[in-house]
């Protein structure tokens, strides 16, 4: 089945930030209910990768009775192949700050945090300057909302929302059991809205132009545009804003080097799509009736025929083994075993059937690991081993 959505460039995110004061004062003069309805009708889904409906997230926290609530911007951008959030924070920080304050107004929070990954420490001075200017304006319009930066210290897992709260509370970044969800029990046990940087930038667009402008982009179940971080074997690596729903074939036409063998959609925790499936794969959230839809936090890594898929998988597994928090056994031991397993097959110490055993182990991790990290190792593992089995063996 061939999907024929064309690749459409969009230019919302990095444009038109200048009237943020206007957007902020107009938005906070509206009722929380109106703003939530606006977000819900836009059908915006979280842009960090998981794709939870943003309007619903805000609504759930707004319904909690607590006096203290928090708004957190997740800027712990650590997925291999993604680099869009840094660009947003350095080019249009006021969009993010404005949306955080509007969220505060909607749910009844007076404090916001930006959890910034340690690797982006150099962003801090400029971002702090923007925050001061922003808070100065908030004071002028009598809006009681403070934003602070919280620095991470080099841990991929802290991008997982509950691990991020643990980290902010001064603990090891180990994910919590869910439920309870952050909307009722988040940072310091208080109702918390936690959104990805790009999600907040999109809510700015929605509050500025109305839900329809956003909803009109994309396809059913995958509305709006999205930033894509393009890297690997491509003549034009960089950040591109595209409408959701495009086919991978069109994407490769635009960004490939003419010899694209496979594309990793969604980073190391996403899926590897081989050339034969480019036509039937669309980029968007699940639920479309035709073909396969792959959600993504925006990481698109292209590999040409000079690349060994064994080396790619080996690199991912080493990444996961190091970044696993070690809290639950399936992930801690599973990552180690998958890595040593494929090496043993490659060296000929184990036969090819051992790969099937490893596939079952990956599947077990998918069902039994505590958080998204351990659960998603199977995505890249199975899609690479299934499609490039001979490269794993010889």
């Amino acid at each position, binding site marked *: 089945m061939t999907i024929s959505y064309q690749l459409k460039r969009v230019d919302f995110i990095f444009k038109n930030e200048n009237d943020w004061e206007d957007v902020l004062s107009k938005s906070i003069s509206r009722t929380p209910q109106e703003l939530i309805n606006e977000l819900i009708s836009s059908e915006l889904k979280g842009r960090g990768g998981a794709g939870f409906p943003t309007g619903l997230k805000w609504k759930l926290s707004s319904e909690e009775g607590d006096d203290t609530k928090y708004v957190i911007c997740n800027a712990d951008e650590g997925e291999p192949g993604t680099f869009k959030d840094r660009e947003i924070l350095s080019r249009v920080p006021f969009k993010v700050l404005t949306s955080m304050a509007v969220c505060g107004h909607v749910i009844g929070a007076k404090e916001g945090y930006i959890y910034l990954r340690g690797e*982006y*420490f150099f962003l801090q001075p400029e971002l702090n300057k923007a925050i001061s200017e922003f808070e100065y304006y908030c004071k002028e319009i009598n809006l009681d909302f403070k934003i602070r930066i919280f620095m991470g210290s080099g841990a991929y897992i802290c991008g997982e929302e509950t691990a991020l709260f643990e980290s*902010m509370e001064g603990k090891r970044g180990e994910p919590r059991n869910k439920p309870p969800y952050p909307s009722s029990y988040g940072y310091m046990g208080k109702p918390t809205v936690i959104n990805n940087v790009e999600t907040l930038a999109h809510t700015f667009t929605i509050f500025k132009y109305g839900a329809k402008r956003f909803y009109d982009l994309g396809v059913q179940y995958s509305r709006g545009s999205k930033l894509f971080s393009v*890297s690997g*074997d491509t003549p034009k*690596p960089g950040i591109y804003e595209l409408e959701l729903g495009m086919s991978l074939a069109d994407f490769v036409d635009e960004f490939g080097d003419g010899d694209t063998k496979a594309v990793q959609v969604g980073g*190391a925790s996403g899926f590897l799509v081989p050339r034969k499936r480019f036509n039937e794969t669309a980029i968007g959230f699940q639920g479309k009736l035709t073909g396969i839809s792959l959600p993504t936090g925006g990481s698109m890594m292209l590999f040409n025929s000079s690349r060994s898929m064994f080396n790619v998988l080996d690199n991912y597994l080493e990444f996961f083994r190091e970044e696993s928090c070690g809290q639950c056994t399936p992930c801690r031991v599973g990552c180690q075993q998958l890595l040593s397993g494929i090496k043993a097959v490659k060296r000929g110490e184990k036969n090819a059937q051992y790969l099937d055993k490893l596939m079952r182990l990956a599947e077990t991790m998918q069902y039994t690991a505590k958080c998204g990290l351990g659960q998603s190792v199977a995505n890249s593992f199975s899609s690479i081993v299934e499609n490039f089995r001979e490269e794993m063996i010889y």
Partner: protein
Amino acid sequence: MNPVSDLIKNLADQHGRSRHNLLPILQGVVEQEKYLSEFSMTEIARELDLPAAEVYGTATFYSFLEHKKMGRYIIRICKTITCSMKGKNQVLLAIEDMLKINVGETTPDGTFSLLQTNCLGFCHKAPAMLINNEVFTDLTPEKVRDILSTYMKKKGASYDN
């Protein structure tokens, strides 16, 4: 009083003495000292009235909170997929050759430490590395030699002071 104890006291005054202030305090010590010694960790535990094991547990979780003595400039070169594909190994060899150390080691004069790290978020400008908090991208062996020479001169300058 020990200068590290002073530093820890100041950091605790600045950030607070609750559990949720622990990470900024650990980061503050690392910024000054480049690593967390056992002494620093027990001092922090005392200052915040926490079990030392809790401080140790938190500190050792994060890859940027070193707990062994580091050089004044910590080089962290990205080893994740795109940087690896785009010539990270040649850059790493150039660094090892120039500084005469391997990954995980520190130069005898205590100026440079060399580490590998996971995705720095500069895949479109690979290979990339950090020296302390500064980012360098689109690296080649030639480029990295120039960068390190600049740092070596910086070191000379500060010795003159």
